[in-house]
């Protein structure tokens, strides 16, 4: 299954400066996001219940970018699969970027649950991978034992009831036609195409937020997303806010839990430009010329 992908995506990049001494991934070695995650975890020899989530997340995102740069529908397929995992990891990462409030808020609990779920799936995958290893070994051992499987001796074959064969040439042709016509496989999952409203750029959303905040000085989150076209844009604006918070161009305040989230423009002296924001989160075709090393430097720094 991974073979076709391997053809158009050569062994991909090394990420330098990694704390663990650099990690190298080659696309054809992984048959899915869980596979990759497991490998990342194994490489760092981390207790998976105590994972330094942000670090793994960063490596994962770097890998994701590399994956996106490869061509072909296959790569698109894989990228979407990976995005499921990436979104979970991103959520966890977002938690780290946010100011550390009390650990018992509802969101924290939700994040913990998301993490547990991811671990549960990871453990499950690991177990099946282990089982696959056993099956492979056993199949190999058993391949040296050949069953007796010989044709029926003539005098027994002669005892078979006379074959009733009423099939006409036309019927046979229809059967052949049915068998030789390519089958469209039955859908395995609910279509999700309608959920994708096209690519949303975090950078573009950051520009919109910047314009709004420069005009009004301070706004609450509801106002900032009031003209968002869809949920995806809301998410992108939220991510943009996180980035801007990290860059110290805005500040948050919230009077009480679940109260409106106020965003204040800090009027930074260094002249914040949304264009400086790297598109780490979404597919950004125009960025595909970037080498994987460049964004990785950004993500590493961000994690620290």
């Amino acid at each position: 299954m991974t073979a076709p992908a391997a053809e158009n995506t050569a062994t991909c990049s090394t990420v330098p400066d990694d704390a663990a001494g650099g990690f190298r991934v080659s696309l054809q070695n992984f048959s899915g996001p869980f596979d990759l995650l497991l490998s990342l975890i194994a490489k760092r020899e981390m207790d998976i219940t105590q994972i330094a989530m942000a670090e793994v997340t960063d490596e994962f995102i770097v890998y994701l970018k590399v994956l996106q740069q490869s061509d072909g529908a296959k790569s698109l397929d894989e990228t979407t699969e990976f995005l499921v995992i990436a979104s979970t990891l991103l959520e966890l990462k977002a938690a780290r970027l946010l100011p550390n409030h009390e650990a018992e808020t509802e969101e924290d609990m939700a994040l913990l649950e998301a993490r547990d779920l991811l671990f549960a799936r990871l453990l499950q995958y690991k177990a099946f991978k282990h089982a696959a290893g056993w099956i492979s070994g056993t199949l190999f051992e058993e391949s040296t034992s050949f069953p007796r499987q010989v044709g029926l001796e003539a005098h027994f074959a002669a005892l078979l009831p006379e074959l009733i064969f009423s099939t006409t040439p036309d019927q046979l042709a229809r059967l052949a036609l049915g068998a030789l016509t390519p089958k469209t496989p039955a859908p395995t999952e609910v279509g999700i195409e309608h959920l994708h409203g096209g690519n949303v750029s975090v950078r573009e959303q950051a520009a919109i937020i910047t314009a709004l905040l420069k005009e009004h000085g301070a706004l609450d989150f509801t106002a900032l997303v009031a003209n968002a076209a869809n949920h995806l844009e809301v998410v992108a604006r939220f991510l943009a806010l996180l980035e801007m918070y990290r860059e110290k161009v805005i500040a948050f305040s919230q009077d009480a839990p679940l109260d409106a989230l106020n965003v204040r423009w800090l009027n930074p002296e260094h002249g914040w430009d949304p264009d400086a924001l790297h598109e780490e989160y979404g597919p950004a075709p125009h960025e595909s010329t970037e080498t994987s090393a460049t964004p990785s430097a950004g993500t590493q720094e961000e994690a620290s």
Partner: protein
Amino acid sequence: MSQGVNAAPSPNPSQGPAAVDLLPGGLDAGIEAVLMVIDEPIGAPALAEVLEVGEERVTAALLRLRAQYDGGDTPRGFELRELAGGWRIFSRRDFAPFVSRFVIDGQTARLTQAALETLAVIAYRQPVSRGRIAAIRGVNVDSVVRTLLTRGLIHEAPDDGESGATLYQTTSYFLERLGLGSISELPRLSPHLPGVGDIDDYDVDSPWKSANHETT
């Protein structure tokens, strides 16, 4: 000699010798004769019915034959194995290098890692839909499932009439290839995660537990 066979459909083994006992070689040879023509494992009950003796006698004879073939210093070149719910003659493994030259068809083709993992999921979770396998493996599994179907290792489960999705399960050929008597003989799924001290401390709920359950 065939008259005797048809005369007594299911004689009580205690009521004197059965027809097969009167033939040279007796029950043991009779079992061997049937084993020569089968092309899939045959269960003791089926043998008992064909040979018109009690099932216990057949089972005892099968065990006797197996021991005889394996016998000490001079084993035979074949062995009698119990798998996939029945008994079947196999060439002795020691001679595989010689025998394999005559068995050129596909038997030894290796499965890819993706196919093996998918097979594992189906084996432990059967019957299971493609969607569910994909969710566990985190990738689309359509082409791998097709490969496994083609290889005869899995097949579509009979429709349960409830869900619309096609469900897959392993075949008896799968058991045969693995030398297993039944699915329940699969080793328990056991996690061996690197760096995890004690898996029991980590309570993985539903997805995990049910997997273990199905194997027992």
